[in-house]
């Protein structure tokens, strides 16, 4: 019964992530269509650092083990995830100060929204990490918690892949830096 639930849930969560690809694909497609010419972004090194931060947190998820190790790793992921989100927020603030915001044009609307979607998913991820940490703290590593950990790992790593696409196609290609 438990292995059944485990495999069903992981499979179902995979399917959900595949569908989420379509969500991001829609925002990506819209960004590329609306993005006429180039957008002037904040700073490439900054975005690169942001990517590395996220990458490391995702890497950490591969090492879940016993209760204490897992709690430590989750804490580490939370810190890095929060840092990632803060960096995104900082970038937004810089861009708004420079005079470009959501309402400036279609291209900017698409840029801010695409990134915010990743941010929103990451925020949900952070909440998930906190809840799981509490669960593991009080109940330890059980079939339920390890199932949820597996899903979280998938989620976090999926988000990372989406971010890699964003970094490559939005930051590296077709953007200039002011």
């Amino acid at each position, binding site marked *: 019964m438990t292995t059944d639930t485990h495999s069903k849930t992981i499979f179902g969560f995979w399917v959900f992530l595949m*569908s989420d690809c379509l969500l991001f694909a829609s925002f990506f497609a819209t960004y590329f*269509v609306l993005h006429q010419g180039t957008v002037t972004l904040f700073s490439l090194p900054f975005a690169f650092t942001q990517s590395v931060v996220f990458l490391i947190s995702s890497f950490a998820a591969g090492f879940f083990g016993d209760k204490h190790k897992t709690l430590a790793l989750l804490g580490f992921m939370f810190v890095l995830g929060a840092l990632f989100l803060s960096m995104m927020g900082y970038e937004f603030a810089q861009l708004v100060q420079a005079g470009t915001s959501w309402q400036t044009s279609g291209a900017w609307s698409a840029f801010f929204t695409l990134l915010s979607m990743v941010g929103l998913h990451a925020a949900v991820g952070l909440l998930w990490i906190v809840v799981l940490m509490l669960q593991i703290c009080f109940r330890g590593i059980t079939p339920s918690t390890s199932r949820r950990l597996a899903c979280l790992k998938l989620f976090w790593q999926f988000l990372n892949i989406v971010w890699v696409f964003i970094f490559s196609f939005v930051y590296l290609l077709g953007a200039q830096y002011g």
Partner: protein
Amino acid sequence: MFGRLNLEAFHQDVIEQGADLMMVLGAIFIVALLTYCKRWTWLWKEWLTSLDPKRIGVMYIVVSMVMLVKGFIDALMLRAQQMISVGDSHGYLTSSHFQQIFTAHGTTMIFFVAMGLLFGLLNFLIPLQIGARDVAFPFVNAVSFWLFAVGAMLVLISLAIGKFSATGWVSYPPLSELQYSPGVGVDYWLWSVQVSGVGSLISGINFFVTILKMRAPGMTLMKMPMLTWTTLATAVLIIFAFQVLTATLTMLSFDRLIGTHFFTSDFGGNPMMYINLIWAWGHPEVYILVLPAFGIFSEVVPVFSQKRLFGYASMVWATVAITLLSFGVWLHHFFTMGAGPNANSFFGIMTMLIAVPTGVKIFNWLFTMLQGRVIFKTPMIWFLGFIFAFTTGGMTGVLMSIPSVDFQMHNSLFLIAHFHSTIIGGVVFGFFAGLTYWFPKIFGFTLHERLGKWAAWCWILGFFIAFFPLYVLGMMGATRRLDHYETAAGWQPLFVVAAFGALLIAIGVGFQVLQLIISIKQRKENRDATGDPWNGRTLEWSTSSPPPEYNFAHIPEVKERDAFWAMKQAHQTHNTGKYEDIHVPKNSPLGFFVGIFAFCLSFGTIWYMWWLAAVGMIGIIVCVTIRLCDDDVERVMSAHEVQHIETARTRA
């Protein structure tokens, strides 16, 4: 505190006041009935908090039937207006009211009738057909239903508070942008579709996992019933299409809420992008609607022809082909937007290709009847209607897939007649056939046969009389969505005929209501004691009518396709082996509460009552978190309890 909600929002015209009165009276009636029969606890425990997909399925159908009545009244109002609004007369509806009605009609029928009826049936049937006890994710399933109900609620509330959208059921920008639609209407539309869309997405994932992971031992893919196959295909379509809808609606919401420029005409926005995205979802959507209907006919025709389904393997491959092809045709919804001959041709040809597997299905059903012994009970009457109506729709669809011809038919009444032919002929007739067929399984007694036949004939005849004039009108240059036209156009006689057809359909609906009432009164005489009133072929007929909560006391071993038929031939229908404890999901009120909070979020955002929206958002997060911390989600039905239920059945 109240955002942009003020007393003005409650001012409605006479017709809407009438609708509001009907809703209020209906609500009072239900409350009174429940109180009089002392059934509040029963409602809460047996239905609202149930995680049993059989219960959830019935709730879907009930909500959808209510919405069907509303959507149908919308249709009658539209027909009435177009019948009299000629020349100097401007009918009895203002232009904006008329535009709200056709928007609500389309939105209601697609999202809250067709999707609801089908999800309802599938919830009940899919676990039974595959020999499972439940769907893969029972709680998520309940949440899907409540999100669906909230979407429907938003449409109904717009009749009383504020206005509904007047921009058509797909809400093209720039008309649906703030500049041209500043009120709450489009926001109501956005939230009702977005919320129910999330419900649909997670249902799609649920069915996909259920079918792939929970089939009874021995049921390989090529031994599944056709309804299960088409449901699997539908689930694939949902999984790929609905996130596109979510993204698109989010972008339009942002345009309206925070002033972004995704789809505005100026500031670098691109309305054509919306049209591409919405139809990238919209085309798979219509296959999401029709494939289960095809599945239903694949179940009904063999049973009532007393013969195996013809060409099972090609039916499966045709379904797969339709599923794949349906992702490559979306541009045919806007040939007239100027994509150029290469793009138009490509999509035109792809669209035509879908006719081939669809035709294969029709021939296979016909050849199932060939050299069978066909019993013309109500489900088969619906099937006959389907052949004529749907094939007409299919033919006209292929005609319109020729871009140069479509330039003369796009957005005309010819188009309207085409998609009503396929949706009514396919989805509605399919659903009614299915409902009649599976009614005894769901409720334990059969429906009155003669009234069912009269209803079917009225619907079928009414359909042709209502929609054939529209084909002609379209060729005369009459476009859709017109609340008035000049006398010289010469269209009025045809609109009168169409209205008469709609009236005939209304009589058919009347027969259906009568049928329900009389069948309920006569339920004891028509009780289905065996569980197999039609000599069925698939596993659901091996259970009692209605089935016990756990569906199967013993999970069946499947040896061939038409598993139950094989069991009957081998005289192995009763498994009296040792009974075991069965785990079933515990009830949970959280699905209901997620619904309440989703309503708060939607209503709050629509009316700019940010505190209410925040309450909604936080509430949803809290409910979901509580559920995800809950490890005690099942209860055990003891082997003894199961034995008791099963032997009571055999005795009966």
